[in-house]
């Protein structure tokens, strides 16, 4: 809520019809951020529900987990695809790395609320401190995702033997390593396409979030918000950042658990 609003959200100077009122007791910026996020929820929901629809249109891998081999005949088991951790080559550690990523993003969400809370108290030092932590979390998450993508693209040592139609429209049978948009060693082509598209779109949101966090951090540090008289910008960017975390919670469930 901006500093100018009164208890009932009507400007005392200009009355109900004079403009400058806050009909939903939220400032213009905050309201628009909420409606933007609502539209973004629809975008991500459409992606994730499409993922689910495409996933159930393929047979699931039914055999025992330790004999799993990638094939474009059935959908892979995620914990057998995402099982690598940086610096631990060849060690089977299912979902460990993505667990760490989830933890980092949730933590950065927590430090973001703490920054918003500090903003309510006009406490510049605390805002700057927590914004810095949040930014660090966001950058670490992006770095983790870059590694995750790189590993996904380069693939395992063994690869999988697949029969597929290559980009020259010819049917070939060969050992495939890693993933691209035509073929991947883990499962049907749609598996890698959806992975790249949805985690990429989420990562794009995180990237924008980090830029916004930096701007707010900088402005808070040089005292722009003090001069403005309120820290509402922290709150608005906080909404966006929590949304990014919210989407990740769903991406995590659909891609890595189900």
């Amino acid at each position: 809520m901006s500093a100018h609003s009164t208890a009932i959200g009507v400007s005392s100077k200009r009355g109900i019809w004079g403009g400058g009122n806050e009909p939903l007791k939220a400032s213009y910026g905050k309201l628009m951020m909420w409606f933007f996020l609502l539209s973004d929820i629809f975008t991500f929901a459409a992606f994730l529900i499409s993922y689910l629809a495409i996933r159930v249109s393929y047979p699931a891998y039914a055999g025992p987990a330790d004999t799993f081999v990638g094939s474009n005949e059935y959908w892979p088991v995620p914990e057998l695809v995402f099982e690598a951790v940086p610096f631990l080559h060849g060690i089977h550690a299912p979902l460990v790395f993505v667990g760490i990523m989830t933890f980092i993003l949730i933590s950065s969400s927590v430090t973001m609320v703490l920054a918003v809370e500090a903003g309510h108290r006009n406490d510049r030092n605390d805002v700057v401190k927590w914004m810095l932590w949040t930014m660090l979390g966001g950058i670490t998450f992006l770095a983790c995702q870059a590694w995750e993508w790189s590993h996904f693209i380069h693939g395992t040592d063994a690869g999988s033997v697949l029969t597929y139609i290559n980009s020259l429209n010819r049917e070939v049978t060969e050992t495939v390593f890693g993933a691209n948009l035509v073929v991947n060693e883990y499962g049907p082509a749609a598996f890698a396409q959806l992975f790249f598209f949805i985690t990429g779109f989420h990562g794009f949101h995180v990237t924008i979030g980090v830029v916004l966090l930096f701007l707010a951090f900088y402005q808070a540090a040089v005292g722009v918000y003090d001069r403005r008289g309120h820290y509402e910008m922290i709150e608005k960017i906080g909404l966006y950042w929590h949304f990014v975390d919210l989407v990740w919670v769903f991406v995590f469930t659909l891609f890595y658990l189900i």
Partner: protein
Amino acid sequence: MEIQDTKSTLEVTPRNNEKIKKIWKTAGILLALTVAEFIMAFTMDRGILLYVLFILLTIWKAKYIMMEFMHLGDEAKPLFYSIIVPLIFLVWLLIALAKEGTDIFLMRW
């Protein structure tokens, strides 16, 4: 040359420990739910039951993020409903596309 004064003119209120405690408590709940999901992923058999549990736990987590972190619960009721009610459309999208997906599966295999 004058040095720009960056000293705050706003009054800084002291930390409200109760509020901060609540934030950490919410963080703990989110973490606990995620750990529960992990344990379920490795101990339970894959199937509809597990998937439904996963999705319910995820929606539960989403509720905490939206209510506690984004303070949606503290907003005016019309704003709250204008964000929550449109999400009903997603329920239909989910039903429609799940049906579509299973039908494609039956046609293909």
